[in-house]
């Protein structure tokens, strides 16, 4: 029988955080724009440490500019820094889009970002000429670091991009907008693959797949400035108001979907994160809802391969095993549902967000679970560690920051999500869709086999 226990952090201090601040999410969103650059309006550390984090996970360059706010700006405001920063960035990088990402300091000193951008636009026009200036879109993104966390920053950024760049709709383009969330290049490519199989064109808002996984081809790569291939073009972003629907794969894409629905009457669906069988099924239903796309035989074959793997593997090796899952909320709920489909129990799920939607979604998922599910929200890795010391799970599923917990408690860790820096290739391999489900199933099963099955008497267990 299923039962649910909900717990919230009972102390002020955060120990080993599961979330970071809003600007990171916004920088990630803007990095998915073709020839797009984030300009962080804050201290140098605000961009440098995020660049470091992206490089460490994706093993790719990550270009993020910063206005380098210093003490004088705290007193007199960051006006000069932002205006000259935009001017310099425009002249040096001639980007198609600049996303101005605010931080704690620029939000507290109360900079009039919209006003400064207007002035900067005028100055860029004067220095680069009307035509060149016209080609550079500048989007203001408010991401106060002291409110919520990186996922809200992503949400705010996608909303700002859509709100400030999408044009008045003309004719329906028969495309679907997809807001993928903070996911890996492999996941975005898998979603595109599914859309292709259904013969449905899409606009990714935004597409970080190629920018964060690009080929080493010095001869045909643009270096000065460095712009990786791919990403969502400004034209696509302008066109997203003409789409026949918007699907956000996560709850933190809802604001942009709402803007498109309210302003341009583009209908939308939010969630679920398409991990595992039921969630991917629901994603296909959503696609069908907004389009004439067909669920093709080939796609059903892919589904069949996942079901086949589940039949081969899950009941034999995974049934009854328990998992602790942590990380970003939508991914956690998605994975929790998937492990239930595999006959496992998501004994403990832990997210850093203080969000009722997460709790409600998890309660829904828990109905299918065999055994008690503990839902920890607004928590950190230390809380999870303490709980796992008291009641160990068979495996832990989450990102690299939990590696020491796994080591100390001697529980194997199945790596997923962001950041994974102590193993390679995880950003390329999808976990969404049917094929991603197979990958994740294999990853979980191999971990279980490694830890819990006896290699000497292997044949007896086959």
């Amino acid at each position, binding site marked *: 029988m299923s039962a649910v226990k909900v717990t919230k952090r009972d102390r002020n201090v955060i120990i080993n*955080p599961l979330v970071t601040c809003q600007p990171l999410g916004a920088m990630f969103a803007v990095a998915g724009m073709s020839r797009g650059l984030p300009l962080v309006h804050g201290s140098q550390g*605000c961009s440098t440490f995020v660049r470091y984090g992206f490089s460490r996970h994706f093993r790719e360059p990550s270009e993020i500019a910063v206005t380098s706010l210093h*003490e004088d700006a705290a007193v007199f405001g960051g006006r000069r820094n932002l205006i000259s920063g935009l001017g310099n960035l425009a002249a040096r990088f001639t980007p198609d889009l600049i996303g101005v990402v605010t931080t704690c*300091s620029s939000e*507290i000193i109360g900079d009039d970002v919209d006003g400064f951008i207007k002035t900067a636009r005028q100055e860029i026009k004067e220095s680069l000429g009307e035509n060149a200036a016209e080609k550079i879109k500048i989007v203001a993104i408010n991401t106060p*670091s*002291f409110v919520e966390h990186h996922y809200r920053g992503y949400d705010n950024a996608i909303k700002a991009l859509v709100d400030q760049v999408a044009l008045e709709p003309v004719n329906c383009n028969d495309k679907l907008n997809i807001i993928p969330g903070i996911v890996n290049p492999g996941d975005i490519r898998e979603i595109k693959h599914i859309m292709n199989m259904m013969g449905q064109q899409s606009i990714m808002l935004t597409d970080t797949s190629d920018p964060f996984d690009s080929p080493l081809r010095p001869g045909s790569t643009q270096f*000065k400035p460095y712009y990786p291939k791919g990403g969502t073009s400004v034209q696509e972003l302008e066109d997203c108001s003409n789409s026949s629907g918007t699907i956000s794969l996560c709850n933190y894409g809802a604001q942009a979907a709402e803007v498109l629905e309210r302003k341009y009457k583009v209908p939308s669906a939010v969630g679920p994160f398409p991990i595992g069988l039921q969630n991917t099924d629901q994603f296909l239903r959503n696609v069908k809802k907004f389009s004439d796309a067909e669920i093709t035989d080939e796609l059903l074959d892919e589904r069949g391969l996942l079901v086949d793997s589940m039949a081969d593997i899950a009941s034999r090796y995974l049934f009854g095993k328990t998992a602790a899952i942590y990380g970003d909320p939508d991914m956690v709920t998605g994975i929790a549902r998937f492990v239930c489909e595999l006959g496992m129990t998501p004994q403990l799920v832990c997210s850093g967000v203080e969000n009722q939607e997460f709790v409600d979604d998890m309660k829904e998922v828990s109905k299918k679970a065999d055994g008690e599910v503990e839902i920890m929200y607004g928590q950190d890795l230390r809380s999870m560690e303490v709980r796992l010391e008291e009641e160990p799970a068979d495996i832990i599923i989450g990102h690299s*920051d939990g590696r020491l917990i796994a080591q100390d408690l001697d529980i194997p860790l199945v790596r997923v999500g962001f950041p994974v820096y102590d193993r390679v290739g995880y950003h390329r391999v999808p976990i969404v869709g049917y094929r991603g489900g197979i990958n994740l199933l294999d990853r979980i099963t191999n971990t279980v086999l490694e830890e819990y099955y006896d290699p000497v008497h292997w044949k007896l267990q086959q």
Partner: protein
Amino acid sequence: MTKEQHKKADNTKNSENGSILDFSPLPDSIIDALESREKHRCFKKEGKQSTPDCNKSSIPGAVTQRSCVYGGARVVLMPITDAVHLVHGPIGCAACTWDIRGSLSSSSKLYKTGFSTNLQEKDIVFGGETKLMDVLLEINRIYHPPAIFVYATCVVGIIGDDLKKVCELAQKKTSTRIIPVQSEGFRSFNKSLGHQLAGDALLDYVIGSSHETTLNHPFTLNIVGEFNVAGDLWGIKPLLEKMGIHVLSTLTGDSRVEEIARSHQAHLNIVQCQKSSNYIARQMEKKYDIPYLKVNFFGIDDTASSLRDIARFFNDHGMLKKTEQLIKEEINKVEDAIKPYHDALKGKKVAVYVGGNKAWSLIRAFEELEMEVIMTGTQNGLPEDYQKIRDTVKEGTLIVDDSPVMELYHLLKKYKPDLVISGAKEKYMALKMGIPFCEFNHDRITSFSGFRGYINFAKNLDQAVSSPVWNYTEKKLKNGRINQFNEVKNAKI
């Protein structure tokens, strides 16, 4: 350099030997933007001043490789293994930095734990002091650590929390050392200020705070400015011990609070990272009358002469003899081991772009392998740092200060090094350009210091430069020179 020269340099196509680097000329607007940075680059020339303009704020809107003051303080203090490092600010300042320093520990893992006060909107409005106090009491209850370092971030500076007062109060309540580090991120464009503030925190609150007398050893020293990245300290300490020296403490690699608290009793300080830690050594000399020596344990010659300097300082006949013997033995071992790497690396051109100290302390190490350092530079150099660089490099070396990303592209493309030495942010850029790369930063996983470390160093460089991947350029494929692909030559396709 004028616009025309820039264009000319860019138009010189590098067609010979099938280089995989191929670029289009720079647009004018970019050249204009680069010109404002011209003073930040120079070539070493005999008799000339030969140091670049430095210690200036970065151009807003640049993709700077620099960090913030908080980052600077954090890197110096974080290797103290049994302390709690609490970041007073919004969650991101802790979340993006809590486990990025590659400093190893032989005991406690507490320093690898991320602590944040997670300032929220209401704390910004009403002030974060109450929350900070609560957090300090909570941490003390859970861990009771020998010290809690409390780092101020930008926000704390703006809302004006009185960090010092809260720490004082909390110290009374908890009877553990609670140490304010006034490292508001935006206090300077140069994170060197953070290094100094971290030094102040140690000098004011830790060093000299234990009066327990240590063993009565005739030769004791502190290793200052050694952070045990990838275990560097463990390549140095055994050498000193073999000389008969007792290492009282390290500031701060693999250190414990109590050791640093007693470090004022040492006879000598030796300073490895002169970028971050000269300040501490100078202050300890003033305050405790401890002389200091600048040392460098990267490279054979520099390691040997550092050990000799130390032995000469103690001026003990037995030690001098032991030291010479040790150096002789170690050098013999090293020279044999590096021979194959030496052959592979000889004549290769290197570009170094790092956070500080390594911009000069590595130069000799490369020269010993007969490699040519054609460019070196730092993100945060001070005038004194560039003087050290100037005195170390040979004539004609390009010296750069705070090069933003696009300028680095430009320089790498123009001067075509065979190898780039830098950190994680530059790594993938260099590789994307087709230039071998060797990590020399927080992320390094191999120790490079001391004699044994030098073997690792040479091996790592060889790994980077000699990797077969660099043979498989698509130009060769497109030109149809199939016989260059030895592996497929005889395969039946």
